[in-house]
């Protein structure tokens, strides 16, 4: 597989990869397949009816990982993929997705990924997704990821999403349905700057007894960027749900947080927390008394917050 420097940088940013990864992988570059590897336990199959792949993980697969990065370096490319993950009973795997766009032209580059997770009984998945944009052109970088999650009895999914730079517009949708004893945990980190806009919406249906979810979002909005955070948890059984949005607002940014919790069962215990505020003056003063300038102090506070 031949990659140019731009493609290599993107790959490093979104997947911490310095070349071809270990284990199973599927690299999609400018709308086409750039490399694939399957293992004895993990199969990757190209869909026939629409763009995208099926990732099939055999029951009982342990300590294996799948990398599925997408990189776009061609301006004006609008890419839409459907990726389906079938995680077999009792498996325990890490899936690393991510999309990097380098847009050096004047046209809009867009990647919309629709990821569906079918997590079988007792299976565990850690899903990491990073989004990154760069480019010196005037073309917009747009990413609209959709994640659909179904977790069967005692299944577990932890989702980590990070978008810190260069995406002009994003609309992120995550919908999860949980069965008995299932757990769904989300850690979202988001930073917007310039005139960027980010909308992120989570809906979690806690349908099984003893199911639980924890949706945690930390974000920073700089310059004149805007963010909208929506988190909806429906407690339809004996369950526990918690959502937390913690945001730092800077400059002329705008942030809205709309948490919603609905209990349809007497035994549902649901909590939401949302806080938006600027960096506390005291925090900046403390770091200045350590010898940092005001802007160095601000950068340390933001970095720590999004770490």
């Amino acid at each position, binding site marked *: 597989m031949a990659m140019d420097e731009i493609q290599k940088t993107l790959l490093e940013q979104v997947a911490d990869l310095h070349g071809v990864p270990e284990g199973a992988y599927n690299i999609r570059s400018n709308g086409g397949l750039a490399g694939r590897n399957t293992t004895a336990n993990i199969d990757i199959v190209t869909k026939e009816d629409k763009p995208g792949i099926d990732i099939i993980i055999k029951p009982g697969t342990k300590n294996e990982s799948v990398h599925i990065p997408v990189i776009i370096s061609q301006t004006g490319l609008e890419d839409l993929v459907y990726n389906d993950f079938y995680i077999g009973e009792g498996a325990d795997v890490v899936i690393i997705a991510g999309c990097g766009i380098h847009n050096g032209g004047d046209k809009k580059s867009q990647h919309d990924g629709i990821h569906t997770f079918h997590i079988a009984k007792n299976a565990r998945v850690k899903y990491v997704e990073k989004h990154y944009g760069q480019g010196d052109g005037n073309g917009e970088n747009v990413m609209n990821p959709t994640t659909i999650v179904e977790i069967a009895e005692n299944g577990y999914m932890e989702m980590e999403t990070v978008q810190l730079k260069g995406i002009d517009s994003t609309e992120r949708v995550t919908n999860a349905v949980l069965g008995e004893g299932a757990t769904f945990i989300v850690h979202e980190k988001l930073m917007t700057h310039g005139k960027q806009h980010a909308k992120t919406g989570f809906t979690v249906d806690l349908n099984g007894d003893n199911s639980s979810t924890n949706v945690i979002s*930390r974000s920073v909005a700089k310059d004149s960027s805007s963010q909208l955070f929506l988190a909806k948890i429906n407690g339809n059984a004996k369950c526990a749900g918690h959502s937390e949005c913690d945001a730092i607002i800077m400059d002329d940014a705008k942030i809205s947080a709309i948490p919603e919790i609905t209990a349809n069962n007497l035994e549902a215990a649901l909590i939401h927390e949302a806080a938006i505020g600027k960096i506390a003056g005291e925090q900046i003063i403390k770091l200045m008394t*350590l*010898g940092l300038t005001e802007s160095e102090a601000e950068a340390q506070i933001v970095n720590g917050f999004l770490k």
Partner: protein
Amino acid sequence: MVDDEKDKHKEILKNISLKIEDGKFIAITGPNGGGKSTLAKVIAGIEKPTKGKIIYNGTDITEASITDRARMGISYAFQQPVRFKGIQVKNLIKLAAGDNMSIAGACDILSEVGLCARDYINREVDASLSGGELKRIEIATIIARGTKTCVFDEPEAGIDLWSFKNLIKVFEKMHNEKDSSIIIISHQERILNIADEIVVIAGGEIKDKGKKTDILPELLQGTGGCKFNCD
């Protein structure tokens, strides 16, 4: 002289004339609301005086920023230390030391302030820490800086008795080994006891100043208490 933020005409400090010699240990004491913390903030550059001058090592620093004063060698420990989400104890100590500090060095400092390094080095300086823990981490940042001038605003507040003994050792060590000038705002007799000089501030003015042998007996006599009769 410093104006109150809410009331522009209120004087918090007036006629303050105080000279702190190199390597001296000064304790500032006096009633609550008397202007002690404001004086400490004026030294660190957090509050700006409306009149008067602050000279540090022969240089007029009245207009110098907090950062400039920190870089010149002034350290300031907050009375109520600040919490940071996501910043770990080791990050804060490294920032204080100016990044030249190893993890082992940071651990030694934590031990000095009575915190087991293993349990604290990777903790976040956030709401999960108690007031006393936070206070000791605040003191650790001052040790890490190792500057010639250290200002502490009521370091004993929130620290239990056992730790208090160790805290005294920390100040003595700073004073003896590093030859730092130490300014501590305190109400604690044991801190006043180890000071070279005691300054009493009340009503925004220096009411008394001198050797502990002269000042301490007067202070401990008290003011005769409250005369209000509830009957």
